[in-house]
């Protein structure tokens, strides 16, 4: 009943979904760490903007001739630190995307390798606990696409930032937030629910 081809594809799928489960956690925690960083980036941009709006020579601060430059330097330095930290977070998001992509393409390659010995029945056959191979391959591709797109969009938000365009930096937190899509994340959770029995089953026995 269970041919060697089916069981080897099953094993690879099980491994990929376990990896996906892990990646979802890493992704979520990296994103949670990003939001306070973006908030402080937006805050620093607001401060810089306020500094540009104020003519210091008309205020009691006129006694410090180099204050504006010094404060601007400090603000830029602080922004730089925050951007550096965001960059670290972005690379952990990237590594999540990379592992999911490599798993998804690896499983697909394995399936293509065995495609001749897997007939339509074997690919679409499912039981109460094990979804069909075709479904699972599809879900894995869905998850891969979700993380790939999410990563690109978030990277684009950060790459668009320029210190000479403060309103862009100021609005970055909102744009970052607008990328959050609960339904897409729920899809991943949904997929993981659908394969939960399959992940727990002991293959190869």
């Amino acid at each position, binding site marked *: 009943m269970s041919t060697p081809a089916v069981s080897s594809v099953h094993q690879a799928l099980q491994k990929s979904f376990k990896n996906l489960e892990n990646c979802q956690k890493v992704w979520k925690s990296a994103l949670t760490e990003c939001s306070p960083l973006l908030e402080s980036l937006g805050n620093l941009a*607001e*401060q810089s*903007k*306020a*500094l540009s*709006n*104020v003519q*210091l020579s008309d*205020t*009691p*601060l006129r*006694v*410090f001739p180099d*204050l504006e430059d*010094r*404060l601007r*330097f*400090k*603000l830029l*330095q*602080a922004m730089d630190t925050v951007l550096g930290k965001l960059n670290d977070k972005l690379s952990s998001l990237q590594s999540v995307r990379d592992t999911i992509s490599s798993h998804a393409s690896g499983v697909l390659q394995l399936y293509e390798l065995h495609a001749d010995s897997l007939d339509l029945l074997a690919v679409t056959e499912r039981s109460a606990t094990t979804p069909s191979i075709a479904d699972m391959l599809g879900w894995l591709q869905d998850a891969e696409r979700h993380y790939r797109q999410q990563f690109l969009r978030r990277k684009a938000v950060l790459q668009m930032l320029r210190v000479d365009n403060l309103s862009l930096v100021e609005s970055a937190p909102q744009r970052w937030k607008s990328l959050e899509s609960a339904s897409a994340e729920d899809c991943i959770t949904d997929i993981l629910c659908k394969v939960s029995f399959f992940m727990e089953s002991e293959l190869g026995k």
Partner: protein
Amino acid sequence: MEGESRDVTSFNRKCSAVTGSARKIRDNMADWHNLMLKWDKLNEDGFSVASNVVNLRLSQSSQLSSSSAPPGGAAELQDQCCKLQHIFDKMVGVVTRMENLMTSQRGLRDLEEFQFGPEGRQCPLFHTWDTKEFVGACHFLWESFVQEVKLKQIILQEVAHTISADLCAVYLSCWLHQPFNPAHNRHMLEALLLETGHRPL
């Protein structure tokens, strides 16, 4: 081998059982470190009080234009301003103690000039720095803190009387980011601590 063991003993003598001028400098540098930590803490506390002041002031002025002012607002604003004044007084105290440290450092230099002539002592008390360099470093640090205190005094005087949101934001970011206290200060302090053996080489 012999040279090595001699190095170790001279290191010990310099760092743990120091006496006289070296001991005094070493203690002064530890005080610098503690004062700067204390300053940072006060700066943080001051910032949160100053932002309370700004928020109260701005919400007051927006309420004034729309309806009658809340009765408790003014008292609370006064209360926060007093708190800020209190923190500022403590910061002035910190800078006064920094000045004392600098004076003590100058005294040590003068003592050396008296003991060894205008050239100072031949071999350094610690690793490489001579007493004049300690005075220079302390003076540099002290000057930046004096500027900071001047800036903070203006902020303290003005922050509750400003209705422009932008200027308030500038006051707050001046308080938080300490434009006259560059990152170089931190490195200077680390250099002092390294030289006097508080930090392992």
